[in-house]
């Protein structure tokens, strides 16, 4: 029995198709759903967690249909929403205790102590949550989500707004949970994190899966090297045998090449010949950013492009 399975899962908001015939299978792994803003990640998660009903199609979690047996689905999942929601006027311990009681776990007090220890919150457990840092609040939310030992946990952007250390910490926890057999379904904007920690990623754009697979496989689909070119002014499309256009991000154009070192001088000529003014060039190994750019960038119309480009630039860290 697969943990998460969807068949043609579709959600329309009026004329807008937020999720478009999504077919996914996720099992005992860390699955990352990646995509630009408004691509349908949260909508997908809401449908899978029985918080939103689909327009069409089916989804089942642990063998239970989300529409026909929502209570059974809720019994085996936990959901941590995109916007952090912890009661700031309650202590960390009280926050988790409420969840333990709502889930009806045996010996809630002991279970809460245990989870606070796992999430390294024991020494601050009796302080009000309003005194917690962003990273601590996220860990508190994880503790709440884990009280009933769910089979699947849905995390909507769990590392958003956290610093590097806190992010790494959250990822270590997620990793440990997965090692114990838990399925993790998460969304993120951070390509490098997805690359490093996810067993599989799905890149979603306009509600459709544009690429799906293991990060290294996806990168292998691109050629061996990536050449990025910074140009001055408008980009005039350039073709060169042995290289492939990946996408454009602002004034930076990316190509892939089987042999980058040889292609580099030829590409400069070809670019100049087409009328581009090349300012700088660089050569590197492909990253998930390039996969993302290739699957998302190409079919994006100019209007939507600007916004996700902005987000990409915000989140584009350490990829090169």
């Amino acid at each position, binding site marked *: 029995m697969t943990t998460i399975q969807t068949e043609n899962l579709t959600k329309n908001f009026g004329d807008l198709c937020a999720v478009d015939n999504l077919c996914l299978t996720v099992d005992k792994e860390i699955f990352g759903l990646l995509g630009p803003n408004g691509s349908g990640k949260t909508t997908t998660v809401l449908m899978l967690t029985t918080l939103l009903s689909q327009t069409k199609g089916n989804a089942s979690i642990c063998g239970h249909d989300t529409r026909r047996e929502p*209570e059974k689905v809720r019994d085996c999942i936990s959901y941590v929403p995109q916007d952090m929601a912890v009661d700031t*006027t309650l202590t960390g311990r009280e926050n988790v205790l409420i969840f333990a009681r709502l*889930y009806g776990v045996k010996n809630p007090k002991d279970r809460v102590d245990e989870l606070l220890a796992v999430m390294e919150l024991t020494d601050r457990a009796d302080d009000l949550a309003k005194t917690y840092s962003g990273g601590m609040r996220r860990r508190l939310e994880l503790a709440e989500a884990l009280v009933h030992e769910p089979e699947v946990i849905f995390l909507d952007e769990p590392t958003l707004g956290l610093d590097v250390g806190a992010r790494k910490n959250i990822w270590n926890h997620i990793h440990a949970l997965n090692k114990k057999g838990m399925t993790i379904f998460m969304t993120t904007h951070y390509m490098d994190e997805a690359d490093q920690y996810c067993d599989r990623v799905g890149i979603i754009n306009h509600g459709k899966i544009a690429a799906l697979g293991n990060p290294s496989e996806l990168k292998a689909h691109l050629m061996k090297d990536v050449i990025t070119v910074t140009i001055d002014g408008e980009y005039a499309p350039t073709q060169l045998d042995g290289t492939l256009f990946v996408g454009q991000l602002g004034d930076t154009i990316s190509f892939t090449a089987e042999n980058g070192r040889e292609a580099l001088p030829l590409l400069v000529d070809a670019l100049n010949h087409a009328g581009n003014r090349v300012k700088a060039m660089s050569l590197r190994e492909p990253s998930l950013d390039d996969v993302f750019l290739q699957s998302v960038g190409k079919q994006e119309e100019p209007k939507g492009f600007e916004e996700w480009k902005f987000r990409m630039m915000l989140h584009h860290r350490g990829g090169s």
Partner: protein
Amino acid sequence: MEVPDDAPPQGWIVKGVTTYIYRDFIRWIRYRVGVVSTLVLPAAWLLFVGLALPVKFTGNYLDFITPGILVMTILTAGISSGSLLMFDKILGFLNKFLAMPVPRESILVSKILFISVRGLIQATIILILAVLIGATIMNPLQYGLTYLILFLFGVFISAFSTTVALYLDDHDSFAAFTAMVTMPLFFASSALMPYDVMPGWLSAIAHVNPLSFAIDAIRDVGAGSIPVIPIVLLLVFTAVVVVLSGYVFRKVTV
């Protein structure tokens, strides 16, 4: 407000309700200004309106006005029930709770119960204060009936306000709704003056105002009769609104 640690699975809705109430209760007592205002406001109302208002329509005006202030207090308390739910919705708590296996209706029931009982605590303060400043002391049955009417009215109002909150998307529109409903309901009721001194149009409105309904019933209790029909009707109206609220809740949380 301790919640038992081990409840049988069939008592899950009870456990859900008590846990949600426990949560709202601690949040309320931690927010000290909130506690003071819920307790001081009704007292202030009674003192200003009951003692300071220069007009005297009836013999013992304090006995006349107290039921009005009681119901008014329950009204403002009950209306804020929707506000509690609204904040849970805006801040993302509602979605977290809805994704849990505990029966979803327990969220709704807990809000209604918490607010209604909190309203009764406020009512108690008014009743004590009223006696201190010269209202007639009633017998235990009369107090019991008064509490029953206030409780039913509280459930009625808080179920109504949570239903509205379920439909509205932001707190500003909810606040606008609250302001729009509370004051007109109060002034167009029999709270401040008997029907015979009202202008005809006002008396017509006041007669169909649910607020007057509860106020008149409490006055009947004070006068020594048992208002069976008003209580039964109040029970029916309350049941209808609660069922409606439950229906809307299910509809908006698919």
